[in-house]
Structures are given as C-alpha cells and as structure tokens.
C-alpha cells in the first residue's frame, strides 16, 4: 500500500467518524466540535489534492469563522444545550434507510462511469494552481462574474442577517 493511500484512509476515517458524531451526538456543542474535526479532515484532503489555497481557506473560513459562529449560536440558545430528551425524530430510521439507499445508488452510478479508476496525472510544470486560480477569478474570460456575484451574495447575507437581528431587538 502506498503511503498516500494510508493517509487517505486515515483522513477518510476521520471525516466519516466525525461526521457521524456530528449527526448523532446529543450535546450540540460536541456536535459542533465534531464538525470542526470533520472539516479539518476535509482540509487535509484538499492538501492531498494539491489545492493548497483551499486547504488553508478551509481552516480559516470553516473552522475559524463558521464553526465559531455555530458554537456561538449553540451557546446563545442554551436552553437546548443540555436537552436530555432525544435529539432525533422518532422515525429516524426512515432518513437512515433513505441515506443508505442514496449512498448505494451513488456508488453504483460512480462505478458505472468509464475511467473512474484513473489516477491523477502530475500537475504540468509551469502551472502554479495558486496564481492560476487568482487569474481565473478576475479575468473577464474566467469566473469574474461568479466571483463578483458571490461578493454581492455575501453582502445580501450580511444585510439580511443584520436586518433579522434588528427586528428582533425592537
């Protein structure tokens, strides 16, 4: 077994086990912390895939901002933190079954594709993914429109969230 594969398996185990705890853990703070672990595993995967920028952004944005916001929200709605009652719906087995079915379907579809077992070619010399990403995001022939639209989306989110917060205060 190649070392890369071992790292992949460790990482996949980390992601899946943490993800499982995110959805089953009764204490919501623990669920949010398990989410941090899962997100960290995804960052390692990005590093494994040579996407350096996305790997660090995953940590900065997801762990540094989103997970902290989640922890905050859980602390703010504290009445439910130590809810001793069941955190699942009574009919939790239906989603579980559905999830397994969808997973089986997806796995089937994945293996039905030709060339799915390909391995990655080396990144061509002279291509710096980091600079290429910057170029793609701002050059008119690239993704400048989605890039600017995403900033407007964030502006809209900020305005909306602040507005919701204001109406609550009055």
């Amino acid at each position, binding site marked *: 077994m190649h070392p890369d594969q071992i790292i992949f398996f460790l990482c996949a185990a980390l992601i899946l086990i943490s993800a499982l705890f995110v959805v089953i853990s009764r204490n919501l703070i623990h669920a949010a912390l398990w989410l941090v672990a899962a997100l960290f595993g995804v960052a390692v995967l990005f590093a494994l895939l040579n996407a350096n920028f996305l*790997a660090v952004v995953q940590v900065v944005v997801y*762990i*540094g901002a989103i997970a*902290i916001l989640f922890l905050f929200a859980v602390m703010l709605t504290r009445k439910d933190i130590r809810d001793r009652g069941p955190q699942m719906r009574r009919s939790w087995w239906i989603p579980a079954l559905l999830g397994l079915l969808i997973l089986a379907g997806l796995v089937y579809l994945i293996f039905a594709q030709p060339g799915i077992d390909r391995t990655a070619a080396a990144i061509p010399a002279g291509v710096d993914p*980091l600079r290429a990403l910057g170029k793609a995001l701002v050059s008119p022939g690239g993704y400048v429109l989605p890039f600017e639209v995403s900033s407007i989306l964030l502006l809209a989110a900020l305005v909306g969230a602040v507005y919701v917060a204001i109406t609550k205060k009055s």
Partner: protein
Amino acid sequence: MSLQDFLADPILFISNWLQGLLVGWKLPSGLATVIVFLIGILALVIFAMLFDIFLVWVERKVVARFQDRLGPNRIGPFGLIQPFADIIKLVIKEDITPDGADKVVYNIAPVLAAVSVIILWAVLPLSSKIFGVDLNVAVLYLVAAGALGTLAIIMAGWSSNNKYALLGAYRMVANMVSYEIPMVVTLLIPTILADTMSLNGITQSQETIWYVFLSPLGMLIFLISSIAELGRSPFDLNEAESEIVAGFHIEYSGMKFGWFYASELLHAFTFGGFVGILFFGGWQVPFLMADGFHFGSFVVALPGIGVILLQAVAFMVKAMIGYWVIMWVKYSMPRIRIDQMLAFNWKFLTPLSLVLLSATAVLTKLLSGFPLWIFGVGMFLSNLLIGWITIEILRFYAHRQRRLEEPLAQPASVAARR
C-alpha cells in the same frame, strides 16, 4: 560531500548526509525522508520550547523593570534558572478539574492552544536556509493557526463550567475574531508588494527595501491587530483580572495553565517575528548578500555558514524587538473597554486598512514600470497622505463631539469656578 559543502549550507549538508546514511541502512527513501523531517522538526520544536522558557524569564524581568522592581534574581545568575523552578512547581501542582466540567474538551483545550502556536514555527524562516517549509500559502497558514487558537480558547471557556470562563470565551470571540479582519487585510499588503504568499519569498523580495518604508501604516495596523489577536493588553479583555478574574483559564491549574501561559508568550514572540518578516526584512541584513557584505564595490566575503548565522541573529534580534514593543505596549497601556475596542476595530482599523489596501493595489499597478526610488517615494507619500487625511477626519469628529458636549459641560465648570 566535503567541508566546503558544509560551510556553504550546513542544514542541507546535514540533511543530505542523514538521508544518505538512512538509505545506506536499506531504508526506503520515503521513510528516510520522513525520519530526516522528524529530526529537523524535533530540533526546531525543542529549540522553540527552550526559547519559550527563556521568554518566561525575559517577560518577568521586563515587567519588573516597567514596574520599578528587580524581578527574579535569586536562582541562578540574574534569576535565569527561575523559569525552571516555575516549571517544577507547575508540574508537581495538583491538577483540579472542576465539577460539571466537560472533561474531554477541558483537557484538549490547553493542548490545542499550545499546538496553534507551535505549528507557526513550521513556516517561520529563521534564516535564508534555516526554515521548516517554504509553503506557498504561508501568509494564510498563520491566519489558520490563529483560528485554531481561537477555538482552543472557546473550548476552554465553555468546558470549565464557570461563568467567568464563559464570559472570557465570549469576549475572546469579540476581540480576537474582530481584529482578524484588519490583520488579514494588512497581510495582503506585503503579499501584493512581494507578489508571493511564502514568507521566505516575502523576506527575499525585501532585499532592496524593507516594506515598512513602503507601507508604514500597514505595519502599524498589523502590529495593533496582532496585539489584539494575541489577547494582550490593552486588548486583554478575555482575561481581564479585575473584571472576570482570569477569564477563560480561570479553572485551570498546574501544567494545563502552564501551557496557556507558555503559548501566550511564544505566540507574542512569534508575532514579533512576523512583524519583522513582513515589514522589517526578516533575516535580511543591510548590505549582506549570499556571499558576504557588499558596500558598493567593496566586498567582504563570508562563507555561507557565516551568512546564515548572521541572518539568523538578525531575525532573532528583529523578533525580539517586536516582542519587546508588544511588551512595552502591554505594560504601559490600561485596558480599554469592550465598546471602545470594538468601535476602534470596526469603525477605524477596518475601513482604514481597506482604503490602504486599495491604494496599495492601485499604486503598485500604476508605478510598476518606474524605477525603485519613485515607487518607494510614491508608496510612502500615499501612506503619509492617508494617515494625514485620517487624522484630519478624526480631528473633525472630535471637535464636533466636543461642541456637542460643551453646552452640557459648561454650567458645571462655571459653577465649580465660583
């Protein structure tokens, strides 16, 4: 493989020699690389930890001088052995876990706090040849490490089952997290100027001119926001002794408290180092090139090892100066209120840093064809202009504020005079 090679680049020589030795023992080359890496990392981390112990002494000595005391002076010369006595005391102290604490999270938090600081050393270029790894996203890497530190503090505050600790954690988010914005924005300025995100690359590109001359305002904003990011006074609201006792680490004792303390000191020093790297040329020494000093045509040749050591000394001196400035601020400023702190960040630092970033980007593009001195003068003047406009705006608002408050204040003062 000769003495010549060793003198030219000792680190590379030793790692090549180790690699050769291990491969000679029939180890696969991948495993050999890992072992060589591990040895290098252990050396770096142990150096950082020993230095951390030294920093405890420096901090105690400096704070004593600021407060007109002598500081530790009993154990060893100048009290140098004092930190070791501190460590022994911390290790043999009973470790108390408060009732109702979330035990796992409670125990992970101090380790995470230490890890978030130690991993910064992986990208720290101590010299042109002594560095862990030259990551091409190092600038963001240090922000990512800071995110782990924030998380550690929230975990500590939440899991202690203590009101003060919880308040400390909330304040931490308001504090550390808010000041991350101006910090990230000012990190963009060296990135634009050097056209790279690797810290070694940023240092190398400051061979001709240090960025503090191109962007003095950027340096100031970075320094202020990193002090806030460190949670040091005047921004130490998360552990404000007089308000919330010790904040997030109130329930910690023994070595767990020790790690919070040690990581704070090492963090401060490391950020002093980052200020040095990003704005003061890192390991660059004036006139020192890869083969010795160049004063115009007069050249003093030095072997590679000499240059590397000089660079390392230069870096340590710059980092120490940065650390000293952080301590100086800490021990001379009173703690600010939380509303002042947030207003200072969101209404002053963030808009200012964004304006500065836009100006830097436009000027870099416009002046890129011109000789260096025009570029430098232009950048410097633009910074001066932005600084002057900022001060004028502040003055205008201060005057207005005073006029608004005057009618209220007048009668009282008049009455007092009679």
